[in-house]
Each structure stands twice: as structure tokens, then as C-alpha cells.
């Protein structure tokens, strides 16, 4: 059958210096006919500028997500891909593998599926492309046997992602891999069984460089930072200035500081630490001379997501600083997460992510809902609108009236109404 398949258009993707997945998959198709048919359908898509997948839902026993089911509309022509599902698999935190681990995955997948892997999906999962309704289950069970687990999908916690962090990076301010693993395992049930209004993503970056793209691609970015003074090695600083020249340092370090808080005093670097906003720039340029401070922790943000519906949002500061080292620190974090999920879970609309929910109810109300004190670091600047409802200042006859934004504790309101 393979030789009958037209791949004329996708063949054009075999030339050029960048590695071609077409060439690789063609090779694979020699022993996996489904892959050949996949290339055939893909070629048809290229011709027609049209897609031929239908999506539905398929669940492994005890799981409410993790499988992205696809049915081909061209199954007449390409029966081997009539069903062609993706299994999302949770990777080790930070996408680190021993060859043993990775070979084990390859073996299981070669046995049960089409043998196409994506390392990794945008959320961070290992994506295994190409099972049918039958092999999905067999594959999943063998994955489970070998210690693997399914990733998230639907209105659930999604697979977490983090940067390489302390395993290898000199900038890292907390144990991204440790916390990612801890949160994954603590919330493994929320990850597998969709019970949220909509998806919820954590991404963890060891420092504000945010190599895990947490700010814009996760509902709850957790970003490493430090309190107190930056570490400065003046000898290395002097070496750097000598090597590159003063003008270079002024043009590329001093004038780039967002708060104008770093100075070159002779060959010495002086940082006005209380005004340093931990933007990382100077440290990035002079990593031998400058390092994050010693009292490390995290900043916790909330509400990032990509476009759909209200447009892109970024995380915004929720907790400016939290230590993140001990059991108790982890406990404090999961307590906060629980309160957020509780309030969001009971008050959000269907398909409303936590950032959209905050947009609707207001950050002030949200903070009350989760029991967190307002902090000026949560905002760039206070409101410029005078239309504010100060409950404390309302006369008693108007007292207790609801705020500018719709009341979120709708249960209470209903109860009050009934009592009247």
C-alpha cells in the first residue's frame, strides 16, 4: 500500500538544512503502515489546505483526560489511521531523561502505537501520536506498569512544566524540579479528573528570566526571586569592566536597568537594592560578577493565558515573596492553591479561566474570596478611576450593598434573599 500513497507535496519538506520530520516518518512508515497513511492524509491536507481530523473523547479507566482522540475523515482511503489518538504522558520535571527511562518509553510505544513521539508538547507533555481505541488502553496500562502516568486535558489541572533550574542553572532561586514534582503528585487527582470550571496550568521558572514561559502560558506562574542584596563579586566586576570598557558597561548594563538603580562607581558596581526589581538584566550580562541574593524564594502570580475569548493575559503578582524550601513552605503554597481552586471552582462560569474570572469579579473581591491581604506590589499603580465603592464609608441605610462588580458569593446573596 505504501508505494501507492502520494506524498508529492510534503516531499518538498525533505530538502533544506533543518532536520525533516517527513524524512524521519517516511523511514518509520516502512515498518509502521499507519505512518505512511498519515503522510498520505497530510499530503492531502497540503493539497486542499484542509484538515481531515475529527475530534472526540476517549477515556482510560479511572481517568477523565489525557487522551486526545482523532478520527480520520479519509478513513476509506487510509483505514490504518481511522482512529489515530494522542496519549499525553507526564515527563520527569524539567524534561530530563536517563537513556534507560527514555528507551523504556520508546519500547512501550513501539509495541503499542504508531511510534511517533513529540518531545514535547507546548504544555510540556510527552505526546505519543497514533493509537486506536484498542491499543490506547493496552499502551496506557503498560505505561502505568512502568511508572508513567497520563497528562491532563479538559477542565482539569494540566501537566506542569518548569525550567531546568537548580539542576544546572546558576540563576535558579528555587528547586523548580522538586516543586513541580511535588505539585504534580499532590494534585494528581485534579490532573486526572476534570472537575474545574476550565483548565488550570502551573509553570515554574527558577528566576525572572522565565525560561518556562510561565507569565504568558500558565494560570499560576511561580517564579524564583530573592530578598535583600544581590551578590556582587567586585573582582569579577572589575575584570568585566576592564575587558569590555566602561562605555560598554554604561550602554549595556547601567542604562538598561528599569529602575535606574545600578551604578558604576569607578570599576565597582553599586546596586540600590531596595529599588532593584529583580529584573535579572545586569546579572544576565555579567553572570560571573553578579548573582541573585542569598535569601531566595518565589514570587507567585496568577491569571496568565493565551488569546481565546478575552485576549491574552499575563500572570499578575499575587504573593510578592514566599520562601520555598521546607515542607511547611510547600504546605503554605498548596493551602493557597486550595483556597484559589475553592473560590474559583465554586464561583466561576463554565470555561472561565482564573484570569478571566478575576477580570469579571475584580481583583479586590477575589483577594477577599481567597483570604489574602491586598499588597501594593500586586499593581503597577492604584486606580485612576474615582468610581469606587468604599463599603466602610457608605451610610448605614445603604450599607452592605454589593460592589461595583457583581457579587461572587452568590450563595450568600441567595440565602439573604430567602431570609427576608
Amino acid at each position, binding site marked *: 500500500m505504501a508505494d501507492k500513497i502520494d506524498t508529492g507535496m*510534503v516531499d*518538498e*519538506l525533505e530538502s533544506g538544512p*533543518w*532536520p*525533516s*520530520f517527513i524524512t*524521519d516518518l517516511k*523511514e518509520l512508515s516502512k515498518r509502521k503502515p499507519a505512518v505512511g497513511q498519515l503522510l498520505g492524509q*497530510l499530503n492531502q491536507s*497540503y493539497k486542499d*489546505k*484542509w*484538515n*481531515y*481530523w475529527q475530534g*472526540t473523547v476517549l477515556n482510560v479507566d479511572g481517568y477523565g483526560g489525557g487522551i486526545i482522540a482523532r478520527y480520520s475523515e479519509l478513513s476509506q482511503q487510509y483505514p490504518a489511521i481511522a482512529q489515530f489518538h494522542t496519549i499525553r504522558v507526564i*515527563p*520527569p*520535571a524539567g524534561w*530530563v*531523561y536517563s537513556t534507560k*527511562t*527514555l528507551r523504556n518509553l520508546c519500547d512501550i*510505544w513501539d509495541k503499542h502505537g504508531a511510534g*511517533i513521539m*513529540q*518531545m*514535547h508538547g*507546548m504544555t510540556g507533555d510527552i505526546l505519543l501520536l497514533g493509537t486506536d481505541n484498542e491499543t490506547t*488502553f493496552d499502551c496506557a*496500562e503498560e505505561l*502505568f506498569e512502568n*511508572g508513567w*502516568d497520563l497528562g491532563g486535558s479538559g477542565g482539569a489541572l494540566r501537566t506542569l512544566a518548569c525550567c531546568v533550574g*537548580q539542576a544546572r*542553572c*546558576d540563576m535558579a532561586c528555587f528547586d523548580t524540579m522538586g516543586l513541580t*514534582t511535588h505539585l*504534580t*503528585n499532590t494534585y494528581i487527582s485534579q490532573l*486526572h479528573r476534570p472537575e474545574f470550571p476550565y483548565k488550570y496550568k502551573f509553570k515554574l521558572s527558577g528566576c*525572572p*528570566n*522565565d525560561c*518556562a*514561559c510561565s507569565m*504568558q502560558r500558565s494560570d499560576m506562574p511561580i517564579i524564583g526571586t530573592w530578598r535583600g542584596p544581590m551578590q556582587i563579586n567586585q573582582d569579577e566586576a572589575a575584570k568585566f569592566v576592564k575587558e569590555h570598557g566602561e562605555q560598554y558597561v554604561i550602554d549595556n548594563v547601567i542604562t538598561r536597568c528599569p529602575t535606574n538603580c545600578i551604578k558604576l562607581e569607578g570599576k565597582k558596581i553599586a546596586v540600590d537594592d531596595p529599588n532593584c*526589581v529583580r529584573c*535579572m*538584566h545586569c546579572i544576565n550580562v555579567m553572570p*560571573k560578577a553578579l548573582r541573585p541574593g542569598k535569601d531566595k524564594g518565589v514570587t507567585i502570580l496568577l491569571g496568565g493565558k493565551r*488569546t*481565546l*475569548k*478575552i485576549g*491574552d493575559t*499575563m500572570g499578575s503578582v499575587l504573593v510578592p515573596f514566599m520562601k520555598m524550601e521546607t515542607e511547611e513552605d510547600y504546605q503554605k503554597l498548596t493551602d493557597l492553591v486550595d483556597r484559589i481552586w475553592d473560590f474559583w471552582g465554586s464561583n466561576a462560569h*463554565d*470555561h472561565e479561566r482564573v484570569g478571566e474570572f478575576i477580570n469579571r469579579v475584580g481583583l479586590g473581591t477575589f483577594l477577599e474570596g481567597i483570604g489574602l491581604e491586598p499588597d501594593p506590589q500586586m499593581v503597577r499603580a492604584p486606580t485612576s478611576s474615582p468610581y469606587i465603592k468604599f463599603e466602610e464609608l457608605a451610610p448605614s441605610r445603604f450599607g452592605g450593598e454589593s460592589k461595583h462588580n457583581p457579587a461572587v458569593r452568590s450563595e450568600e446573596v441567595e440565602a439573604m434573599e430567602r431570609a427576608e
Partner: protein
Amino acid sequence: MTTATTKVRKKGPRDNGAPDYKQNLHPLMVKNYGTWAYHEFVKPGVLVYVAESGDKLWVVRAGSPRTMSVDKVRKICDIADRYAEGYLRFTSRANLEFSLAKEANIEPLIKAVNKELGFPVGGTGHSISNVTHTQGWLHCNLPGTDAAGSVKALMDELFEEFVNDDKLPMRVKIAASCCQINCGGQADLSINLQHHHPPRIKPEGVGICELPKVVAICPAAAIRPRAKDGTTTLEVVDEKCMYCGACHGQCPTMEIRDSETDTLSIWLGGKTSSTRKGPAFMRLAVWGLPNNPPRWPEVGEAVKKILSAYKQTGRKFERLGEWVERIGWKKFFELTGFPFTKYHIDTTEMARSTFNTSAQVRL
């Protein structure tokens, strides 16, 4: 379909959670965890990390197509076993990273990566790293264009920028998304699909989805139920619809794609890092590019035009969006020759926050 789950079969454990990362770390990473002192750029694609203990770890980065056969992944393992103590990792941009205890292994490893895998080494420093992208026609049910294929074509064009680390003012992050849902991230430069009309409802399909859910998902309240021949169907109020495709994700009947009219747009200046002025969103730069498989040449041209202007006038450590902000969008459009149109002007609730509410002009 789900009857399959009722079949009697041996069941594995449940809720395993994440594999233990510690089992998967290079020994030098275990030993020096949290105590790395600094790093240095050795050459394109190669960095060295020095720990407080004095240990050195060499990291070699290789470009990967992300979509690979098990056979390819096994070859990767072979190489890691030979030169990298049996460990490897993937980056947040789907690149491959080998960690080496021995400096002497760098060149043999690079040779093996080039020859045996066909992968280039690079993507570090001020380079263009791998393009983050989405499923496209390979697997998703919603795409209007392909992802892996268009990215392969683009990276062929940008190969020199990948294998060098000093051809650009700063690292450039590129992304691509295959429908308006935009699973691809914000990036310095992103190529995204754009729909141009409301969904056409496939009447034969209306039964298959829960109508109230479809109605509810529309952010513009553009969908309403309509009685027709005794059953309820849906209709879209064209004026309200913003062509977002949220309904299409909810129900395949709401066909938003159009092979004749869908186009590609280029967005500039996304940034997630908190460096300098902090994170930023991408902005519309170029629209109406044809969706032209198999190699999308118009997109490659446009991207190169932008990058060439950036190379010429960008300052060191200035991300793409920071560069445009400094020279001004007026200059950007002059340098690249793309037109500025009324469509570039925001029309959302936040529109006013994008207006030039100052007398600051470049004249």
C-alpha cells in the same frame, strides 16, 4: 467507543504522578544541584557551567524537529550513552541538550549529532532558537494551516541564525499557531493563522453537540438558538462575531476555517521574561500573507525582511519588541516596507491604552 474500557484486562497502577526527576539527572547535576556558580559561552550551541565545587559541566544543544520516530529517539539515546554519561534533556523550546562531564567529548558528540541524527548544533546565545509550534494538520481537529511543516520550511531559511550565536542583537524566539486558539505562545515573532468570517454552520451536524454549551462559549454572545422545522438549530449574528473560533473548538459544526480566505499574520514583540521593562504582548505587524504550502515562501520572505532590519539597527541585548519600541513603529514600517493600516489600530475595550496619548512624535 468507550465500551472498550469494559473489556477485561490487567490493570496497571493508577495516579503514579510524575517520574522521579532525580533518577533522570546527570550525576554532576545531582552532585551540584543548586550550587552552580556561573556559565560561559564556549561556542555556538555549547555552554559550560561551573559549580561552586569547581565541577564543570558542558552542555551541547541540538535543534530538533520535535516530531520524531521512536527510532530517532533511540539514536539520540545511543549518542547520550556514548558521550554524555547516558543522560539528556529537552529544552522548553523542544531542543535537545546533552550534558557532558568531559570536555573532550564535545566534538565527537557534535559530529555524531550532525551525522547520525542530522540535527544541527546551535540555538544558544544571540541566535534564533527552535520555533515553538502546535499540531497543525498532523493531529489537531481545528487547524487552518500546518505547523511542523511550515516550521521546517522556516527553519531552513533561518538556519544560519540557529547555528551562530552572534548574528543578532539578542536571542530571538519564534512561535507559530495553526488556528486562532493560538496554542503557540507569545514570542518575539509569531506566525499565526487568521480567520476572516463567522463560522458557517454545517446543518447536518447540529445534533451532535450540546447546543447550550455552544451558545455559552461564545465570548461575543453572537450565537443564538433558532427554531427550524420543529427542531432547534443555531444561528450566528454576523455583526457580533469576532471570528475567534471558540465555538469551533466546542462543536465541529461551527466551521470557522476557509481554505480560500484564511491568511497568516506576523506578530512582533512578545516577551515573557521580566527583564528590563518586563513582559510584553506581541503586536500585529504584517497581515494577509497567503497560507501557501508546502513551503510558505511569502512568510519566510517577510520574516527575513524583519530580521534584517533588526540586525541592522538593533542594539545589543535589545529584544525584537524593545528594538521596535525604541525606534518607533513608524520607523519599523519604513524600514520593512510593510503598510500600517487601520487594522493595526486596537478596537478592544483596552484600545485607548494603546493610543499615543502624548505629544511624543518622531519627526
